[in-house]
């Protein structure tokens, strides 16, 4: 599991790669938690290279999304592989979390060029 982040004015981008399982979920919780702290408006988690996630990892997504929402922010996810999307749908995460097909669509919706120019 690796998490690479980029903090932009309107958005924090986090690229999550590899396997998230019971052995790596705590590390993810700490890292995403830190990013949520410093994020003003929105946190976007790019899952294009997330090859595996189990319930320990899904639990982290739920905790971070709740925390962001409570603080008036937004936590979104993009570029889920078909396997990860199936898991999200199975536990209703597609209804309670903001999901985007790919990064371009997500950026367009969360931080549109107009907002960036302002």
């Amino acid at each position, binding site marked *: 599991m690796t998490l690479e982040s980029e903090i932009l004015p309107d958005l924090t981008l986090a690229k999550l790669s590899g396997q998230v399982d019971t052995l790596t979920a705590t590390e993810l919780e700490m890292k995403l938690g830190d990013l949520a702290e410093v994020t003003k408006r929105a946190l976007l988690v790019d899952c294009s290279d997330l090859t595996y996630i189990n319930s320990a990892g899904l639990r982290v997504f*739920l905790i971070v*999304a709740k925390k962001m929402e409570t603080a008036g922010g937004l936590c979104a996810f993009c570029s889920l592989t078909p396997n990860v999307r*199936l898991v999200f749908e*199975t536990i209703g995460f597609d209804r*309670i979390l903001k999901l985007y097909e790919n990064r371009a669509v997500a950026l367009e919706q969360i931080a549109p060029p107009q907002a960036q120019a302002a």
Partner: protein
Amino acid sequence: MRPGSLSTKLNVHLRETELVGKIVREFGQWHDVPEQTVFLVKLSLDELVTNIVVHSAGQIPCVREIVLRLTTNQHELWAEVEDDGCAFNPLDLPIPDVAAPLQDRSPGGLGIHLVRSLMDRVNYKRIGQRNLLVLSKKVTQSSAVELP
């Protein structure tokens, strides 16, 4: 798929979930199991083995061994997880409300729900001093890669 079977004894340690993942991936490759089936079976076994290791800590008797089994025939894959801990039937757990809004969702209880939803069938049996969970997943002909 190619017919075959496997049985391996696991130690009661969380690190063993890595071996479970490796076994499902490599056994799956040898037996032409489609990639998505490998993913779903690996996830289900990961959840079950993790639960046994994590929740066996306070149990009497404690779990001393876990046995993993995999079986394929042309159309179906079976996975079994056996442990010698005290009786526990995960199918008795309540189904979490996956339609609840974000703030009402509890972060626990997702593991068993995933297993029940992603597998075609899940059966629990108490056999002597052992818990046995049998999972099965059908594979459609078209998604299976057959050797000539």
